[in-house]
């Protein structure tokens, strides 16, 4: 497994857990309507996101390449895959945010306003979705353009 694949798997685990935590805090205990006024849940989601970033940067440090110590781990194929994954992720995240906004607008257009808690959901969701999507696409492209060969 290359460094890129290892990191993608770790990212899926870290941000997958963060996504579960944010979803539990946002949709549980009164749901989105009361989220904006519930300080406890706001702090809880911030702590979850903090955990996500902390674990993410720790993982980057632990899986770093050390010239002369670790062999070459990233090459032009990895860079090509990363670039393609970036483009696909951009499209997916933009589409997701757009669709979420349209759905919220449709659901709340009669009331004339949207519960402010949804802004938190959009912000946190976009961050988490970006990491999860990039890691997933990277693993899929790695699988499609790679394989296990003999020595």
């Amino acid at each position, binding site marked *: 497994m290359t460094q890129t694949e290892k990191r993608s798997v770790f990212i899926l685990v870290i941000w997958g857990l963060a996504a579960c935590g944010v979803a539990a805090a946002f949709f549980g205990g009164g749901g989105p309507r009361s989220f904006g006024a519930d300080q406890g849940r706001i702090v809880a989601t911030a702590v979850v996101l903090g955990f996500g970033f902390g674990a993410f940067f720790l993982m980057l440090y632990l899986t770093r390449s050390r010239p002369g110590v670790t062999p070459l*781990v990233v*090459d*032009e*194929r990895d860079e090509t895959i990363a670039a393609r994954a970036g483009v696909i992720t951009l499209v997916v995240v933009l589409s997701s945010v757009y669709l979420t906004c349209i759905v919220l607008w449709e659901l709340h257009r009669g009331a004339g306003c949207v519960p402010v808690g949804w802004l938190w959901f959009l912000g946190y969701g976009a961050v988490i979705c970006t990491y999860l999507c990039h890691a997933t696409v990277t693993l899929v492209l790695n699988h499609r*353009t*790679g394989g296990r060969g003999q020595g």
Partner: protein
Amino acid sequence: MAKAEISNHIRGLRFAHGEMTQQELADRVGCTRQTIIALEQGRYVPSLALAFRIARVFERPIETVFNLEEA
């Protein structure tokens, strides 16, 4: 423009060069073993620089290592 595919003879050339391993070739051209595997399976088209480095390892002109196949 017709779609073109790049095929190569890397696998055969490795064996012709003292059964060179994929890792050995990867180390000599500066890429990962996974990239050599992908090249041999025709799942990845290398950059021009990598193609030249591979051809140089086998001491052959680049066009005898890689083929352009017009579909």
